[in-house]
């Protein structure tokens, strides 16, 4: 849009005003566009919201760039593992059990003679699926219940907060061992469901707190005074201003959920063979750690890098969305 900061135009409307008014007006009109520009100074005039400011910061943050690249790479190989691994993760050659690296098999073989490199690549799919689905589920459920509790308050708040406390109080590993050991499905969905069930209170609490804060803003009161309904206030005024902390916590939680899936799989309660998963492979390899440490180190390394990437991303997003650091 063509930007013209011509204060005179606006002053013309202050007909009843005094000379002092006109002077003050010109000053304040000149001040405004300067605030809209980045400190560098090109007069873009393009409106900048918190999100575009955050994006502006993130692109210049090396931590964000590196972790985002790692995550993009992981997502790509989770969808198309054939791109970098031509082998079959189930093909076993018992004659080569526990052998070290060999040409074409850079990570060596596992105890059943399967190619560790191929299995590490294919294992990304389970971790990424569990991580993203569990995070999406926990974030949706948590922000819905937490947001409603924060918005309506009263007994609704008491009820939901106590419910969250109950789920919060369940020890994750104990609960996982109990609940998941009775499940026979070999898909990722029981694990995803369990993590959502135990993960939503954390996000729910954050969502509740940030809705309570956003609700007290004058612009929400202004909307109410205009006659806005609850739906409009929640969707147009509260949600856009309360969502940032939820996104930050969810991004960090994603990393921990991936680690949780691996932990549960290691303990035999999470994913089950024949699903290819880092957790299962780490579990199997732990028995042979003295004879064949490579069997453990490669999947464990992949897991650590993945979890680290998501947590670093969450950190970077938090810094970018925190207006106090600006």
């Amino acid at each position, binding site marked *: 849009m063509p930007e013209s900061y011509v204060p005179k135009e*606006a002053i013309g409307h202050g*007909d009843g005003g005094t000379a002092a008014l006109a002077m003050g007006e010109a000053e304040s009109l000149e001040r405004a566009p300067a605030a809209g520009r980045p400190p560098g100074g090109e007069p873009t005039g393009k409106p900048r919201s918190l999100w575009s400011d955050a994006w502006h910061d993130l692109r210049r943050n090396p931590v964000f760039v590196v972790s985002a690249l790692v995550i993009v790479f992981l997502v790509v190989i989770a969808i198309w593992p054939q791109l970098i691994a031509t082998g079959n993760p189930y093909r076993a050659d018992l004659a080569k059990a526990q052998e070290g690296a060999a040409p074409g098999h850079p990570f060596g073989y596992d105890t059943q003679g399967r190619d560790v490199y191929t299995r590490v690549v294919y294992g990304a799919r389970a971790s990424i699926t569990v991580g993203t689905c569990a995070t999406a589920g926990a974030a949706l459920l948590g922000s819905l219940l937490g947001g409603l509790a924060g918005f309506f308050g009263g007994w609704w708040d008491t009820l939901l907060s106590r419910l969250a406390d109950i789920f919060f109080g369940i020890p994750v590993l104990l609960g996982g061992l109990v609940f998941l050991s009775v499940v026979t499905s070999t898909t990722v969905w029981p694990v995803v469901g369990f993590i959502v069930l135990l993960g939503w209170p954390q996000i729910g609490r954050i969502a509740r707190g940030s809705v309570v804060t956003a609700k007290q803003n004058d612009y929400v009161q202004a*909307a*109410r*005074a*205009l006659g*806005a309904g609850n739906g409009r206030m929640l969707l147009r005024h509260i949600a856009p*201003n309360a969502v940032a902390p939820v996104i930050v916590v969810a991004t960090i939680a994603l990393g921990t959920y991936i680690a949780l899936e691996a932990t549960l799989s290691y303990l035999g309660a999470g994913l089950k063979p024949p699903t290819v998963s880092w957790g299962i492979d780490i579990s199997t390899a732990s028995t042979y750690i003295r004879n064949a440490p490579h069997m453990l180190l490669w999947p464990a390394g992949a897991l650590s890098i993945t979890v680290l990437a998501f947590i670093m991303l969450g950190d970077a997003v938090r810094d970018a969305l925190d207006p106090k650091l600006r």
Partner: protein
Amino acid sequence: MAPGDPASVPAPEPLLEVRDLVKHFPLTQGVLFKKQVGAVKAVDGISFDLHRGETLGIVGESGCGKSTVARMLVGLERPTAGQIRYRGQDITRLSGRALKAVRRNIQMVFQDPYTSLNPRMTVGDIIGEPYEIHPEVAPRGDRRRKVQELLEVVGLNPEFINRYPHQFSGGQRQRIGIARGLALRPEIIVADEPVSALDVSVQAQVVNLLARLQSDFDISYVFIAHDLSVVRHISDRVAVMYLGRIAETGTGEQIYDHPTHPYTQALLSAVPVPDPEAREHRERILLTGDVPSPAHPPSGCRFRTRCWKAQELCAQVEPPLEVPTEFRESTGPAHHPSACHFAEERRVVPDA
């Protein structure tokens, strides 16, 4: 209670009649089973009238209940007791469609221009939101033009429609807030300290804008502030509040030049005087102590704990808000309601 005073009643039927308005906020104890252990008496029985095209100023120090009155007038708080009658209809118990219809006619301008505009919405969306909530006011195709007209009316460039609030200065933001309040063409605008967050130089612009809009659109204002000179500038009538009650009410001249309530006199004596010569000669009334807690207001007259005239009578009998007996016969400017047993005229503001 005195519904206005004879000197300034232009129309027979007031637009807004407030009667014995009370708002108590309960103080509770306990986590799960809440038990009421008391109440903050934020507003404790106030009455006033507002006529068409008139400005009623409400002044008082922080915590005296001014803002709670404003929030009740626009329906953001439900009164504990009392009535707010708009065109004869009590609006305190309305809900749903009827409340929405009344809200069209009573709008609010907020104190803090930094928190009263949604940072995620463009100026066009903010000022256009009233039309989305009340679609009958403006057809969809017409809204953008109407928003630009409003921007022009409040003295902003209509091209700013796609900008975000953070790209504006405080005074400009307050103009945006005023434009939003004007969008539905309300009959009454409740302005809750609309200029106290602004620079003094910008305050004058915003006050002048409000005054111009009043004459252009025939709006009535309830103008709440703690700045006495701003209130005097814009108000036809003034009510002085102390601890949830009206202490004294009258026209600007009656309150500022002929105050009879000791609290008003103390307030006025604190107004800065720009002339150093005059400053030498004026007397300051220094109040001692703090405002008592509105959870436990003093018995009788609420001002007695800080009043230099207080006697036994003040602790026992609450003085009614009416023209004091000693001025009842007079026709001078001291003839106005003042809630004091020992009201006497005392000029505290030197002539300019």
